[in-house]
């Protein structure tokens, strides 16, 4: 889609366990590479300034805001999006908890919420309310109380699976 007039060194990266290559403008944010070029539209646009978290994905296992992460920073990196979170049809415990607690309303922010929650649970296996309160993703529908319950449910399930 990028015009031939602008030639850049290809950036090689891994997206959802598959190799990917991008030869466009290296200043393009990862969000728009994912949405417009990789056709992975589960990652959402909300603010474009890294504030709302709707675009949260994992880069090398850590949550980042894709709307302010340029492609130039992703050479050799591994990106996981919401589409790549489940393994072989088996949902991640956080996704399953989101369904069981019936979290989504409009659902638009939830991919980012889930990616942020998965990241939190990697760092805090039994998160307190204060830990959960460090999540800064916005939800205009006000699903926060059910997100809290879903995170606690997922944490319990992940911990049970570990023991």
């Amino acid at each position: 889609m990028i015009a031939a007039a602008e030639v850049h060194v290809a950036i090689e990266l891994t997206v959802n366990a598959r190799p990917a290559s991008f030869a466009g403008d290296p200043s393009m944010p990862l969000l728009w590479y994912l949405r417009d070029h990789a056709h992975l539209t589960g990652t959402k646009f909300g603010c474009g300034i890294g504030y709302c978290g709707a675009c949260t994905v994992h880069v090398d296992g850590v949550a980042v805001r894709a709307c302010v992460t340029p492609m130039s920073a992703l050479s050799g990196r591994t990106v996981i999006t919401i589409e790549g979170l489940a393994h072989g049809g088996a949902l991640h415990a956080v996704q399953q908890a989101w369904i069981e607690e019936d979290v989504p309303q409009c659902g638009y922010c939830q991919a980012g919420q889930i990616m942020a929650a998965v990241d939190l649970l990697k760092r805090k296996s039994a998160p307190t309310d204060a830990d959960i309160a460090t999540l800064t993703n916005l939800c205009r529908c006000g699903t926060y109380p059910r997100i809290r319950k879903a995170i606690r449910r997922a944490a319990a399930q992940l911990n049970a699976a570990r023991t």
Partner: protein
Amino acid sequence: MSVVNALSAASAVSAASGPSAAGAAGAVSGRHALTRREFLQVSASAAGGLVVSLVMPPLAAAEGAAPPKLPAAVNQPLGSFVRIEPDGRIVIGARGCEIGQGVRTSLPMLIAEELDVPWSAVTVEQLPYGLIASPDPPGLASRYGPQGAGGSTSIPDAWHELRQVGARARWLLVQAAAQVWQQSAAALRTEDAQVAHPDGRRLSYARLAQRAAALTPPDGDVPMKDKSAYHIIGHPTRVADGRDIVTGVAAYGIDAALPGALTVLIARCPYFDGSLGELDDSEARRIPGVRQVVTIPPPRAGAPLDRNLAAGVAVIADDFWSAHRGREALRIRWTAGPGAKDSSAALEQRAAAAFGKGGLIARQDGDFAAARRTAARIVERTYIEPFLAHATMEPPNALIDLKANRALLVASLQSPGDASRMINAMTGIPRPDIEIRLPRTGGGFGRRLQNDFVAEAVLVAQKAGVPLKVLWTREDDLQNDFYRPFGVHRLSAALDATGRVTGWSHRVAATARKWRAAGMEDETDWIGCVDRDGFPAGCVENYVAEFLPVDFQLARGWWRAPLPTFAAFPIESFLDEVAHESRQDPLALRFALLGAPRELDYRDHGGPKLHTGRLAEVLRQAARAIGYGRKLPPRHGVGLASHFTHGGYAAHAIEVAVSEHGELDIVRCVCAADVGAIVNPLGLDAQFMGGTVDGLSTALSLEITVKAGRVQQANFPDYPLMRMARAPDVEVHLIESGFPPSGSGEMGIPPVAPALVNAIFAASAVRLRRLPIGAQLKGVSRQSRAVS
């Protein structure tokens, strides 16, 4: 590849947990909606039924893989909403715009209940906008009935109609079984997607579907279940497409794709009624990926705002990033409009001055002036509410493909009927040839009752001649909204020596909602600004409600529970103040005013009646749940408020703590609601939980202001929606009142702000009369210490 198949759009969602892709669908407006009888005839005669389009999953374009997940329809549909597949899958069409209010779940539940099938066997399929040509005047027919989302009407509109849809399909299946068995239909019953013979034999719906589809449905209604037999309605049911949402495959308008479609970003004039002065797009055109730059005209000065909101320069490019770079490279000089020097500060002065003049009397009972003259005590207070933006998480967008004689629109919408009319008016394309698909919508809140972004897409497409998708950034969204009106409320109460309220005056100086609104010619001048018949109207013998319109250059629109939210804050705050001033308990004063349970006339949306007993009951339940009257820790306080909203009743009881330093802690949040018959208690809980959080978020932090003719807020840091850290849990108590259902998407907000400030007063002896609360609490706390 045809246009239809190329869209990553229409498809199905499983009600249980099966895999699926998400869909595009449609809606209709009331103006062209048929009577129920006509509608059922159309439904029954429409051939083809549910449209099953091939699905292109998100990765397909990149990988060229993934076959369609749904088998092609084999069986004929039973009416327009139900198809039963040979494998036993029950496919039910969802007609509404899903904006987060849960209609993609709750509306199919109504059908499934009367069809008498297990919910786990149901696959929900989003329907497109269903306008078809008809031989009868006006030449158009609504295939699915009301499809828009606004005013919390989806459930009340559907309550009888969609249960009948299910019951009629079941009726056909029973008739088919009666034919097979040569048995009277009256002796047969249904259960578990089967028809049961008295001798124990059974025939599955799947085996009967083809025969049933060939039968003629009866005129008029068929019998429906007794509610004691309900196994779906009234039972907690998760959102039908939850799995699609959590796996990222649910498609929203912003995700719609079409081969060859270009991406458009528009630089809009920041001055209301301004225009394009000079444009230099030479640099923008040099950005790789930028294909065209076109201009779009402003609305005609002073004319109704029925198209786009602003003059603009549209950059048409291969993708978002090149469009963004192109837009950044534009050099534009805008010509300011007539409001170029105006500001929120000046508006507030004009509103204050308006009270010196007479306004429009919206309602008058008895003689307030006389009651005031003879009162033992008079209480007067002023409250201020700001402009609000909608800030849907998914910014506006529209994908359009204009051909000579037909059009395709895929967008996140709330009013596809209006979109259809607008495209028809702008292009001349007959409405039945305008295909509108409705993907999931990332929040509505009233923003998408306006289709200005669709108008932009049409204007750009007419010039560019290619299919394209207009995207909005957050800055575009916050600065080009139809804002909830600004208002100053002055309330006066006259009390006799016993503390009885003998007179009530509510004067509202506000930016009229009706100002330059399209299609509102027949509405009152105070629509959206004065709740003339809301409580305590009808409960005070001398009552006056008055409207004082104030000029300002900013578009206005409906914002979730528009009038109730605007009215509840001043009214319910003032009731609290009147109680404290006259040394009465705020709850007891409300009960005294509400009086005996009875119906009062209510002429605006949600009427025709307001039941005082139902309003009293939600207050009673909220007060009981929070333990109203119990001894509280120091610096804690409980506040109450209730409101009648669009036919439903809700009350909030909020406990807060206010520290010596003015730090506010929301300790507990209770909401009691009576919205009549309960379709999905889990969905209702979500709506009231979310509404409460929305109400708190808005009351605490949100306002839109104008300086030098421009909206000052640009992105979320300036319009800080509540985050997790501040959001309390919400205890929702649903009351089964036995009344028919109202909706539920809006009732959870109006009492929140007044309950909150009433609680703050109870905790700190300080009264907040201006929203948002913002930084006022700091000053308030000092004042509190000075008082105590």
